[in-house]
């Protein structure tokens, strides 16, 4: 009555082999089998811990799965009658002890390793040479990230940071907003941006470059579009950018206005205000400063299902002026 076992075993072994082959191919470029190439000491600490756990876990995995395969092949019924009993063994205290102690030792080793790595992951190194860490405030909004530098410069979605210098991030979300989570995979782990709560994390990018990231906590319809990134510049270039932005942002700054439009408004209303999730915006609306301020500050509850969050309740006057300036230059001539 029992059908032969071999074809099915072959199938399973074949699939496992195929998976291994796939794994091998993908592993050639890491391929997602470990954290993406870390570029900051904390991300390196996490990646090292990951590989340490992997080494132990892989051993247990191979042990259990190979025992399973061997037992199934070796002890399958073959020609024995169905009711032929195996040896009536009820247990073994010595074995129970062994497979309690074994995992305890492995977990102990993991805990010790992780705790040893922990200071390097959570403590930002001192940077006396470059004048201490740079502190940036990171505020998650539906559906954009706002960054504020110590001198008041504001940036949207794209953070700029100097290479080689620790950057400490104060991460939060406004009281009227929802939870978000700040995550740049190559620059360390994630930390939630929670309304009413200030969290801190840090990174020190070794090399200039662009490091992508995204919001990692469901925050609404455009969660998937809450992309962000850190552009790491050589210290001199960074300083130059920061001073330029500082003087520009004292009054209406079309460059900041453009960032605001693209990061805050266009995700729902379209780059050309053609509408999308949010309604089409007429040029007359976009250039009516008072009406615009009301909507930006308070949001709008539309009948039906869409609600516009109060995206700019905490914006400075200069921010609003920058947006007006950009909008008037971009849409004013048409109206």
């Amino acid at each position, binding site marked *: 009555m029992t059908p032969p076992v071999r074809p099915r075993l072959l199938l399973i072994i074949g699939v496992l082999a195929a998976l291994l082959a796939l794994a091998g191919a*993908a592993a050639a470029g890491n391929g997602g089998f470990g954290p993406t190439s870390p570029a900051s000491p904390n991300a390196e600490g996490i990646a090292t*811990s990951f590989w340490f756990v992997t080494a132990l876990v892989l051993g247990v995995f191979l042990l259990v799965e190979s025992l399973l395969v061997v037992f199934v092949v070796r002890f399958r019924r073959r020609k024995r009658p169905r009711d032929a009993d195996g040896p009536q063994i009820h247990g073994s205290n010595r074995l129970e002890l062994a497979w309690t102690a074994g995992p305890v030792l492995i977990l102990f080793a993991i805990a010790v390793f992780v705790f040893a790595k922990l200071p390097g992951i959570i403590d930002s190194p001192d940077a006396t040479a470059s004048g201490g860490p740079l502190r940036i405030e990171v505020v998650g909004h539906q559906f954009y990230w706002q960054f504020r530098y110590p001198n008041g410069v504001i940036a949207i979605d794209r953070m700029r940071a100097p290479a080689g210098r620790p950057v400490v991030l104060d991460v939060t979300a406004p009281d009227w907003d929802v939870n978000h989570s700040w995550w740049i*995979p190559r620059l360390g782990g994630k930390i939630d941006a929670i309304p009413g709560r200030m969290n801190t994390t840090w990174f020190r990018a070794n090399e200039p470059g662009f490091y992508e990231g995204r919001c990692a906590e*469901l925050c609404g319809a455009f969660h998937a579009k809450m992309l962000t990134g850190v552009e790491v510049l050589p210290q001199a270039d960074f300083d130059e950018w920061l001073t330029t932005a500082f003087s520009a942002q004292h009054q209406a700054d079309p460059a900041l206005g453009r960032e605001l439009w693209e990061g805050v408004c266009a995700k729902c209303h379209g780059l050309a205000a053609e509408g999308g999730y949010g309604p089409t915006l007429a040029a007359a609306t976009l250039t009516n400063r008072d009406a615009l301020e009301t909507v930006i500050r308070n949001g709008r*509850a539309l009948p039906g299902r869409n609600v516009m969050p109060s995206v700019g309740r905490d914006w400075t006057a200069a921010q609003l002026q920058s947006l007006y300036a950009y909008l008037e230059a971009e849409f004013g001539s048409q109206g």
Partner: protein
Amino acid sequence: MASWLVTVDHKRIGILYLATAGLFFLLAGVLALLIRIQLARPDQSVLTGDSYNEVVTMHGTAMVFFVVVPILAGLGNFLVPLQIGARDMAFPRLNAFSYWLFAAGGIVFALSFFAQGGAARTGWTAYPPLSVLSPGNGQDLWILSLHLLTVSSLAGAINFIVTIHNMRTAGMSWMRMPLFVWAIEVYAWLLLLVLPALSAGLTLLLLERRFPGTFHFFVPEDGGSPVLYQHVFWFFGHPEVYIMILPAMGIISEILPVFSRKPAFGYKAIALSTVAIGCFSMIVWAHHMFTVGLSNYLNAWFMVVSMVIAVPTGMKIFNWLATLWRGNLSLDTPMWFAIGFLSIFTVGGLSGIYLAAFPIDWQVHDTYFVVAHFHYVLFGGSLFAIIGGLFYWWPKMFGRFLSERLGKLTFALLFVGFNVTFFPQHMLGLLGMPRRIYTYSEGGLWQAYNMVSTVGSFLMGVGVLVFMLAIARSRTGRRAGNDPWLGDTLEWYTTSPPPPHNFDTVPYVTSARPLSDLRRSLKERSAL
């Protein structure tokens, strides 16, 4: 037909649970395929951000609350009185009440798709402030459906506990109880202890939603704390994971010995590890909250206790392996699902270690790595065990076998499809793909792994169709006798299907395997 509507027979109520939960499994499965279609390639627009969030929320909620837990309640209902040699549950009418509340909750849940503003769309965890600010009535109906369900489960849990404590047949001491009954005992206690936390949290959520400005629990603008909700939710939510896996482990502990022709290796160790897992599961909840910025001393505590749970879990796995050792393995469909459970659950257990180590969790939290992890535990674990259990007990429930050929085909499709779907999701998470995003623009490996995952999900879909075909065909399937698998436990002592009163007589129980004892003494007597 009408007699099913007013039945208080635990066997019929159990079957009603299974059938209803089966419908929700199909619904939630279709939602899962929608997710995989949307994510198959970059920048697709099969679903919008809002409708994707609805689909994700309803898929998760349905699978947890309306599929896995009620299926286990159904199996428990059918099996517990039979396995302990009782005539019915302690409170048959309360039992029917539980089922009908579950059905009512299910109807509210299913109809909430048509609510003003659509269904709930803030994830199965419904974190505020998002869930408080979310417009429309879908979220309110979601809360109502879960309120109904918690009352149903609480009544069911009390019923199980009273039944197991008081109605075991003569001779069945605690250490002679079937391991499935042990698992249901712990399942019921966990439900009883943690469901009130969920009810309370949801009630606060509802009040804050419906009376804005009056109540200030979770939204910081009004002086509340979003993190408080997460504590309340996960105080329930983590034990919920074990509520879904422990009875599945109980099923495995029933199938493996019978199909190996051996007693369960380390019966006491398996039973006590179930209790230990149940206890520990209530003090590990904040490992779901490592990224909210708790103190690292707290994080360290929750990391260590989460790792401690791995010890009794590992014990179970090794005891099961030892049960196979030197056995006479009949590789029928239930056994294949049990073997599949062992191989898949091991992966899910091991990937949990990464999540318990909080600095590593900071990297993989809320990514597809987590999605892969809990599907390895809940689909490859719980649902594989459940499907194996259905193949095992189907002859007892209906007196006929499910087709072995279709059963093995179901297993092959689900096993391969499952691994093809979910293994690449580990890699997606490590590559930086967060969960619950409705689209992405990355090509390369993101696109490749997502496509592979989608292909796998459709293989699983075919597997489910084959399983349904097996069920449809079982009406004319091979007839089963009282004890077709040569089982160990009392349900195999009565007829298939059992009569309304279950047993005419019940033999005195002298071990955890009364039927195996009975067969041996019959053999000895005939040899004389």
